[in-house]
């Protein structure tokens, strides 16, 4: 005989304000097998949990239903509570009466009724719950980091520091990412290279860190603790081990018309190149689209000149298979394309540039060697106009609906740096709002206004057009209720940022959730900001949402600490809610094998008794519980109904439906 206890949480007033908890308590007492029901202010609190434990012991409960917040929130908590009181943790069911009831309904009558139905449904399901014991799997003590920007670098260093092996997979020929392209960083104005390159060098020198640059993720299989990843090492046509990074090849390459990605295409680079001086690894790479030897077979100059004999035109892509216990995704961002914003004249005017391009124009290693010269005629711009929110906060479909977060601060930085270096320059900034939350951020922006005399104009630019070589920036000055036109020499667009497009593919391969803006979805917006819903995968940097450098570094370190916590375990408890096969019913038809995404199902010829002392050999499906993840695809495909899944069994769901539909 089952003895079920039901615990109804008030969640302060979150539930109790809209759900009559007393009525729910009384109602559930009438349900079959319920011998105990109680409501309490905060079930998840120490006292609340104690209350559950005491009730389990005193009433000899065989199952527990907690009517509270979403099971995604506290299912684990209450399972642990039950376990501590000696009850199998899988004899706990949660009725979600907060997120799916009290928070969305206003009418007390309606919400209470619904809460009772939800409680009844959970009780009905619980009557069929079986004690489950989670299996254990080992943990591969190595982490994979996808993306070698500041987020990936920081995470790698932290994990390596804890003594675990780390692999960084970076699709570009060098690590460093976007931060390597920056000139200075806010709010302290120290140079990006000065703080980033030592970290890059640390990565290269750390024996725990292994870098796969110019590489991409080919395939991901497995699960938390036991990921099996195929990495495609793209052909570099240069032997990484032999190349000394001397640069002779670059000087001799006759095909010099390649666009320099590192300098935002503002100047050219040869077909064989090292992206920038401090690149890690400091190894050349050949652009196969541009190399004469690879395209036409005629040239081979670099091979002849290379003293180290590192050039190898026959190199092929190579697939490396590695195993990992945890994965950090840090794929970063790019500025959006400005095709939808003709009004700013980006495509037509060389002197309308993006902020990241300005970053390169001001950098000592950039195309102008750090002197701010406008691209069209290489003269010093005297009037510079910045336009903020280009493509951000745009719900018209042209841009991105979100705030890109970093633009206000870097625009202030640019304005300040220009006024500092070239005091005779006039700087205007069109803004909608200036958003500067962050330590010393608003002070930084105010310095731009107060100390550097940057002209901030509240309003937006409607059009930029070229008139006799001057860029006419026409916009509104809302505070003065005026329409103004500023003849400028250079226009800088604070372009919105978006997740690097490669993230979609990564998300699919890792089966992690992605939102409509292509940002990866964290497990919980507040409490699990670096975890993914997929266990063992963590997020760092802009792939999860717009972030500046300090925030990215914090998140990377947070992700690293999560990884370390995971890798420190010797065994991971598996999910016991997996498929199993009723061998007496199974006919071995092989349908389930076809739909299993994990290859967890195999077939065996087994001997079965068929009565009369006889046996018969039959082909039946066998599920490997360590590999099965419990999706349930097999259960529906199985024509005989032999396949079922623990925790979400056929009978349980049927019972839930019956309980919900009971009028």
């Amino acid at each position: 005989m089952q003895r079920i206890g039901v615990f109804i949480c008030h969640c302060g007033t979150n539930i109790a304000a809209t759900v009559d908890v007393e009525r729910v308590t009384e109602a559930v007492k009438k349900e079959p097998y319920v011998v105990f029901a109680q409501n309490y202010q905060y079930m998840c609190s120490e006292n609340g949990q104690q209350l559950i434990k005491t009730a389990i012991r005193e009433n000899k409960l065989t199952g527990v239903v907690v009517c509270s917040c979403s099971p995604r929130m506290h299912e684990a908590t209450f399972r642990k509570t039950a376990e501590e009181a000696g009850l199998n943790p899988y004899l706990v069911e949660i009725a979600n009466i907060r997120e799916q009831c009290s928070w969305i309904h206003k009418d007390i009558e309606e919400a209470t009724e619904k809460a009772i139905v939800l409680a009844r449904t959970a009780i009905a399901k619980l009557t069929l719950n079986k004690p489950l014991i989670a299996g254990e799997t080992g943990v591969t003590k190595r982490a994979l980091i996808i993306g070698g920007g500041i987020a990936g670098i920081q995470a790698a260093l932290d994990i390596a520091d804890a003594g675990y092996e780390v692999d960084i997979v970076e699709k570009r020929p060098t690590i460093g990412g976007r931060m390597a392209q920056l000139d200075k960083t806010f709010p302290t104005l120290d140079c990006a290279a000065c703080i980033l390159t030592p970290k890059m060098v640390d990565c290269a020198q750390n024996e725990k860190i292994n870098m796969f640059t110019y590489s991409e993720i080919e395939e991901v299989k497995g699960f938390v603790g036991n990921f099996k990843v195929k990495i495609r090492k793209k052909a570099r046509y240069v032997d990484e081990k032999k190349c000394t990074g001397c640069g002779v090849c670059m000087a001799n390459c006759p095909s010099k018309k390649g666009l320099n990605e590192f300098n935002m295409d503002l100047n050219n680079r040869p077909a064989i190149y090292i992206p920038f001086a401090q690149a890690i690894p400091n190894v050349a790479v050949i652009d196969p689209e541009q190399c004469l030897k690879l395209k036409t077979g005629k040239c081979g100059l670099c091979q002849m000149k290379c003293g180290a004999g590192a050039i190898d035109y026959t190199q092929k892509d190579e697939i490396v298979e590695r195993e990992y216990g945890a994965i950090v995704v840090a794929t970063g961002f790019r500025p959006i394309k400005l095709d939808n914003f003709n009004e700013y004249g980006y495509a037509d005017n060389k002197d309308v540039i993006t902020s990241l391009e300005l970053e390169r124009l001001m950098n000592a290693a950039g195309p102008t060697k750090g002197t701010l010269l406008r691209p069209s005629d290489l003269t010093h711009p005297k009037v510079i106009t910045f336009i903020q929110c280009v493509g951000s906060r745009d719900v018209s479909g042209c841009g991105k609906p979100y705030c890109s977060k970093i633009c206000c601060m870097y625009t202030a930085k640019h304005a300040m740096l220009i006024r500092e270096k070239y005091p005779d320059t006039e700087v205007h900034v069109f803004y909608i709002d200036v958003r500067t939350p962050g330590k010393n951020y608003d002070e930084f922006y105010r310095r731009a206004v107060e100390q550097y005399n940057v002209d901030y104009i509240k309003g937006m630019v409607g059009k930029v057009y070229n008139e006799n070589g001057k860029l006419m920036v026409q916009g509104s000055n809302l505070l003065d209720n005026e329409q103004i036109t500023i003849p400028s020499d250079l226009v800088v667009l604070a372009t919105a940022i978006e997740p690097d497009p490669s993230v979609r593919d990564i998300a699919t391969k890792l089966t992690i959730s992605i939102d409509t803006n292509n940002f990866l979805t964290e497990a919980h917006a507040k409490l699990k900001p670096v975890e993914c819903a997929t266990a063992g995968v963590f997020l760092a940097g802009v792939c999860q949402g717009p972030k500046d450098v300090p925030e990215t570094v914090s998140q990377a370190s947070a992700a690293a600490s999560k990884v370390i916590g995971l890798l420190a375990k010797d065994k991971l408890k598996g999910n016991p809610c997996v498929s199993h096969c009723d061998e007496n019913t199974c006919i071995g038809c092989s349908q389930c094998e076809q739909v299993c995404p994990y290859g967890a199902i195999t077939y065996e010829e087994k001997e079965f008794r068929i009565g009369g002392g006889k046996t018969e050999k039959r082909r039946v499906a066998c599920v490997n519980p360590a590999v099965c993840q419990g999706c349930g695809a097999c259960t529906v495909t199985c024509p005989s109904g032999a396949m079922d899944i623990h925790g979400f069994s056929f009978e349980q769901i049927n019972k839930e439906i019956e309980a919900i539909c009971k009028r």
Partner: protein
Amino acid sequence: MVNKNELENINRISGTDVKKCMKCGKCSGRCPAFTEMDIKPHQFVSYLAQGKLDKLLNSKAIWNCLSCMACVERCPRGVAPANVIEAVRDTVARMQGKDGISANDIPPIVEELLPQQLLVSAFRKYKK
């Protein structure tokens, strides 16, 4: 006082949600008739959001607006200032009541060579 009916009417005719405005001023930044207008495009949106009906109805700018739809085209929030202006214009025109002419009297007096402003803006508005 604020006449709720009229405001609702303007909102309805404009078919735009002025609450979506984030006060960036891009509409006024591009408006070719800006200097001629006593109330600027962004102010139309703002006044409607605040329910300042008098200001809207007494505006002379409604007759200056060219219905070029540049503000609609540019608005990053999908608000359509020109539609608001048109709605006000329309409302004002309707309020003139007795001064107006009945629909039946229109055909003979329409100058064939000159398209009527409201008609033209309607075409623009629904061109998509």
